[in-house]
């Protein structure tokens, strides 16, 4: 009988089922070893993927290579200035930065009230309702750095709004809920912000992970903000996006160096400007996620390996116990190859069954975890999946290992002469 035919022969499998079913408890315990391995592997790498997806989601509304830069207090006396000065960014800095640093793709100056300590939020009135909300003065380019999803019908601030210093605003979902009736369309309505009427042009959908932003924020054109608060040329902070291929860490350093020069801050003063580099944080986090994936691969494979060795071990014992049976089979005409293939297939079969059950259980656990974490918006965990090629890869590895490890008991089974096997009691 040729070996390929044997594998697809119903009778071969019947023989294998027969001998596996003979000792159910042992078979189950053996299978659990490998099952545990693949289960750990699937669960861990799925969880790692979930974390990875979760981090991606946290940052989905921000350009990956963007950063914020804001002024703080100087800590080094320089150019005749004392320590503890507050340098102020100005609109003129935008052109200066763009000129000096070609890696900058977009730069959006922002002003805000109510966000950081010191400035009160805007008081907003619509009909009889009066509330306070954080308010931002923004350039249209801001949406190219930080995506703002605007509900249907509305829009974000555009160039015309900016040029004409229009009194228009984009409000948050919460602002809409609190100020307007449920069935009232806020678009086109006028609300009073610090006693000035503004027309609502859009409602933005709140996205998690936007840092200090909230679902009540109101965005107005930068120039309008300037008039409203009389802030002149001043800019609270810059939001900067570098080109995709730029090194964000280097860009961040350059931006600070240029700003230090402009604002006469000591080059060695690390505390004069604060910054938050999303690109760098993102790189670090995705590095962490990659590490998790790698770790789960190593742990999973090691556990699978241990499990497969367990199968080999049990089959060795089983072959020893079945010495006589195998002797009888050979006396009845089983060739050494037939015996070998039978033991090998037992090994592979057990491994594959264990693998498939492990994958199913792992997928089940991932689904349950997903169910529980779905509604947790502050927990970075989304859609834990294991890519199919990895699953197939794991199964192939197991079949391979199962075959290799099965070779040992298979060889052992035929190394005893049938006559000695028959004599064994």
């Amino acid at each position, binding site marked *: 009988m040729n070996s390929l035919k044997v594998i697809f022969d119903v009778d071969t499998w019947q023989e294998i089922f027969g001998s596996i079913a003979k000792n159910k408890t042992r078979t189950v315990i053996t299978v659990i070893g490998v099952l545990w391995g693949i289960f750990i592997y699937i669960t861990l790498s799925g969880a790692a993927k979930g974390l990875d997806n979760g981090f991606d989601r946290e940052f989905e509304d921000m350009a990956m290579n963007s950063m914020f830069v804001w002024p703080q207090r100087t800590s080094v006396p320089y150019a005749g200035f004392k320590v503890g000065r507050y340098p102020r960014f100005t609109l003129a800095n935008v052109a200066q930065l763009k000129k000096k640093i070609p890696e900058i793709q977009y730069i959006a100056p922002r002003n805000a009230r109510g966000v950081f300590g010191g400035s009160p939020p805007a008081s907003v009135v619509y009909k009889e309702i009066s509330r306070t909300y954080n308010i931002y003065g923004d350039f249209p380019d801001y949406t190219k750095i930080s995506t703002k999803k605007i509900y249907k019908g509305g829009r974000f601030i555009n160039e015309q709004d900016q040029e004409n210093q229009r009194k228009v605003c984009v409000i948050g979902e919460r602002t809409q809920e609190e100020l307007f009736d449920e069935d009232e369309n806020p678009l086109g309505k006028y609300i009073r912000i610090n006693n000035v009427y503004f027309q609502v042009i859009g409602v933005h959908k709140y996205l998690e992970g936007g840092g200090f932003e909230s679902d009540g924020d109101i965005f107005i054109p930068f120039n309008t903000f300037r008039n409203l608060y009389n802030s002149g040329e001043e800019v609270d902070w810059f939001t900067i996006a570098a080109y995709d291929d730029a090194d964000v860490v280097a860009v961040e350093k350059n931006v600070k160096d240029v700003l230090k020069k402009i604002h006469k801050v000591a080059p060695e003063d690390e505390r004069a400007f604060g910054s938050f580099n999303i690109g760098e944080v993102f790189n670090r986090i995705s590095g962490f996620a990659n590490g998790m994936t790698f770790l789960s691969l190593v742990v999973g494979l090691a556990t699978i390996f241990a499990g497969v060795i367990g199968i080999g071990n049990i089959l060795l014992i089983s072959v020893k116990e079945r010495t*006589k049976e195998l002797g009888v089979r050979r*006396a009845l005409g089983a060739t050494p190859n037939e015996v070998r293939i039978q033991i090998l297939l037992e090994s592979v079969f057990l491994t594959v069954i264990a693998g498939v059950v492990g994958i199913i259980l792992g997928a089940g656990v991932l689904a349950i975890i997903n169910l529980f974490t779905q509604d947790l918006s502050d927990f970075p965990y989304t859609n834990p999946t294991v890519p199919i090629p990895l699953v197939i890869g794991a199964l192939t590895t197991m079949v391979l290992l199962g075959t290799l490890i099965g070779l040992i008991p298979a060889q052992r089974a035929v190394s005893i002469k049938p006559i000695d096997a028959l004599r064994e009691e």
Partner: protein
Amino acid sequence: MIHISNLHKSYKMGDTSLHVLKGIDLQVQEGELVAIMGSSGSGKSTLLNILGMLDLADEGEYRLDDVLIKDLTETTAANYRNQFLGFVFQSFNLINYKNALENVALPLYYQGLGRKIRQQKAIEYLDKVGLKEWATHLPSELSGGEKQRVAIARALASEPKVLLADEPTGALDSKTSNEVMGLIQQINNEGKTILVVTHELDIAHMCKRIITLKDGVIVEDQKVEQVIAEVHV
């Protein structure tokens, strides 16, 4: 059917060598029922093992149905055993997790026969030994005599040229021994060549010819008046 000349076999036991068969010459014709007798250590089991191709002789010639049995690999030996020989053991050697039918069908599986034919033949031979009703029973649910009858059915199923029985009644009481020997006689009467190794004289006398081994040589070879086994069912 069986031609053996000048067969020698010795086993190495550490430094010393044990010469078990010291030149056996034996001819067995088709349809004979031969008892091989001898005390333990006389070499009768060794002879049977060599006849059964489970062991190889050191020297001498062995022809089975005009096929020279020499320099066998494990694989060809397995194929010859499967085609030419049927084994009946003292301890039955049924596979305990297979039922009677599956046990009988096992050599047919190794012959590469299809599933239906195997089932059909196995039923046929179980019927022949009177155990058709017990086809689905496991060996543990059968008595010693029934087990041996299943084993005989299994040995016959592959339609071997020679049936080799090693102490087939060694583990049975005298009543069931009679039953089993009656079955063996019946099969022999249908023309099958059978060799029975035994150390019991009454069993030997149920055969047609008795060969007595002592210290590795044949000391006596006589045709005997066959005692018909009385079967009390």
